[in-house]
């Protein structure tokens, strides 16, 4: 019974963690007016876009604030980032932990996104 309770608690916590990320996030317009966004889907896939133009698709795992993913750029290299939520979980930024794709790392490190409701 105890095991079941613990497992259930973990599952609830995990689903809460997933829900924290699932959904649509976007940056504010840049100096040039560009808006970058990403949709994290419940099936562990995501779609990134700029100005409503999709440019990257991938799959991810999000656990204990650690976002691990691969996408259709960067020769299939895996990226590992910590996601820092702030402003009552309505905003996030990515802190690189391990990503050998330099261009992606530079891009993602600059991103600050807000949840789109």
């Amino acid at each position, binding site marked *: 019974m105890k095991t079941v309770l613990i497992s259930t608690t973990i599952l609830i916590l995990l689903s809460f963690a997933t829900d924290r990320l699932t959904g649509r996030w976007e940056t504010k317009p840049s100096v*040039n007016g*560009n808006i970058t966004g990403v*949709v994290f*889907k419940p099936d562990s896939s995501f*779609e990134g*876009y*700029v*100005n*409503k*133009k*999709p*440019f*990257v*698709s991938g799959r991810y795992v999000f656990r204990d604030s650690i976002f691990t993913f691969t996408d*259709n*750029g960067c*020769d299939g290299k895996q990226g590992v980032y910590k996601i820092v939520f702030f402003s009552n979980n309505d905003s996030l930024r990515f802190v690189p932990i391990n990503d050998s794709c330099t261009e992606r790392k530079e891009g993602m490190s600059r991103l600050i996104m807000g949840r789109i409701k």
Partner: protein
Amino acid sequence: MKKYVGYAIAGIATVVIALSFTNKEPENKAELGKLLFFDPILSKDKTISCASCHKPDFAFADTSAVSRGVGGKRGTRNSPTAMNVMLRRPFFWDGRARTLEEQALAPIENPVEMNLHLDSAIQRLRDSRIYNDYFRKLFDSEPTRENLAAAIAAFERTLETSNSPFDRWKFYEDSTVVSMGVKRGFEVFNGKGKCNKCHFGADFTQNDFRNIGLFNGRELNDSGRTLVSGKKEDIGKFKTPSLRNVSVTGPYMHNGMFTTLMQVIDFYSEPDKVISNSINRDSLLAKPLGLSQAEKSDLEAFLLSLTDEKFNNTVEVQMKYR
């Protein structure tokens, strides 16, 4: 026949758009740029406008392999789409213009395009009471090189498209708008086809320069990027073009040598079958991709899905006369 239908559509569209500007005062720089884009005043004999080679119905690309300029002079390269340029630079097949503003002025002076010295073009605009008024109102200045470039570039930056079936699938999360063939084609694009190695990004280009094997120093003797960079390793390299609206922007490649998307796919699948003596071809294409007929069809379906809905009519006409 197909060619003449294309010309007819482009001609009608140009006239309709040009007429719609009559007596309509531009309210911003982009609208002024639009007016200039369609006005042959910027060519030597006032017969050619930007829109003569960047045809609106064909995603602002040309339907000819290479365009004809003033006096019927043939250019040497295909006129690429002028759409979806906001996120891109540099410009031209060889990347010789660093900014859109720089790009906007170059065809005016090019002897095989509009063939008008920029000083003369500016003088014409200053001599025009209407244009003088427009420039003074919007730039607080008479026409100059700088504000002419700024106006045309501002218009070009409005030519963004993001409403294709692919966009609706990926951005709006509606997977019902694309077929299974499109979805499989996207897999081929990112996998066996290696297309995404160069065509990656919001406009399906990384804006870099590649030699895909269309230079052999003989009948294919446009050395491309090396003319600008001066670097030997850049010989035969050209800028990777956007794939947005690619179904209506043919003919394809810097010299317009392929008329259909399937010809392009066949070439990439087995380049040596088309050009066996290419020089300095990119290592990504060192070995044949070996795509099956089914994979080629899926890839074509995916490419067609990149067509914005505003070009549905053009596609319909093309299909009718195919």
